[in-house]
């Protein structure tokens, strides 16, 4: 059974009566709820003003900037270098025979040119072999060369 708009009596469907019916059906709880809704809408309107939005966006920009700075500095993980490739290629053999020792790697020839118990030992051997002054150093079996 359908009704047209004209069939409804305006007096029967006034705001007060509708509110009363809604409260009876449990849809509208009480006056407090509606007052909360009205105060929430006031707060929302206030938040929408420029003063608040500018602060929030300012904070967001600052956070974005901070994240970008950290991303630049951290860069996720250490970049994989030629020295890492040399170590990775000979890992099993090196860890079996020279675990904990320092190796000097010549990145140009991609070869291990010095092995020693210390960086100085490995460096001396590498310098004697190649005549060069700079090498890459790794400690076999560890992610770091020194601990401090």
């Amino acid at each position, binding site marked *: 059974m359908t009704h047209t708009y004209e069939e409804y009596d305006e007096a029967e469907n006034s705001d007060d009566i509708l509110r009363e019916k809604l409260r009876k059906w449990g849809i509208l709880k009480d006056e407090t709820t509606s007052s909360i809704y009205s105060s929430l809408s006031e707060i929302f309107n206030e938040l929408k003003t420029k003063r608040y939005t500018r602060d929030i966006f300012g904070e967001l920009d600052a956070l974005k900037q901070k994240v970008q700075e950290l991303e630049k500095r951290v860069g996720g993980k250490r970049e994989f270098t030629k020295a890492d490739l040399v170590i990775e290629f000979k890992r099993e053999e090196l860890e079996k025979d020279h675990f904990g020792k320092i190796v000097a790697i010549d990145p140009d020839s991609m070869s291990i040119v010095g092995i020693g118990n210390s960086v100085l030992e490995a460096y001396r051997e590498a310098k004697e072999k190649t005549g060069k002054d700079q090498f890459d150093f790794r400690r076999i079996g560890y992610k770091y060369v020194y*601990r*401090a």
Partner: protein
Amino acid sequence: MSIGLKMTKKNQSIPFHEREYFYDKETNQYFPFLGITIISNKSRKKILALADTGCTSCIHLCKSYVEDKGLILGEKINRDPISVSVADGHTINADLYKATCEIDGNEQEVIISVIDPERFFQEEETDIKMVEPLLGRGVLDNFDVMFKGRKKKIAIFRSE
């Protein structure tokens, strides 16, 4: 010959370097600092470094300390930065320099690691801004070192 041997033993029982612990008023703690001279081709500079048996480097410095003191560290021997694991768990980039260090007339060739806390690999930012110089195992292992805990002194002897 026998006199020579006796003298050697006597020399070994006398520390060639002894220093009282440094007292930090703020923390009310004592720290075993040693005076070492860093010698490179161009300069000699004496610094105080904390004797640290947990440090596997010879001498461990912070980049900001090197800049503040104007230290000249000799020749850089690494091409890519090397990783140093620091006590708080971070892994930090460092450069290595070959220099000579001297403790009371005892000179030795050392590797100096210089960390740059601005360049770290882990996910968190490190709080390290400045670290006191550390005198690590690379140097300490060449001597007999005695930590006189009660007397608050550190003594270094020539190794037997």
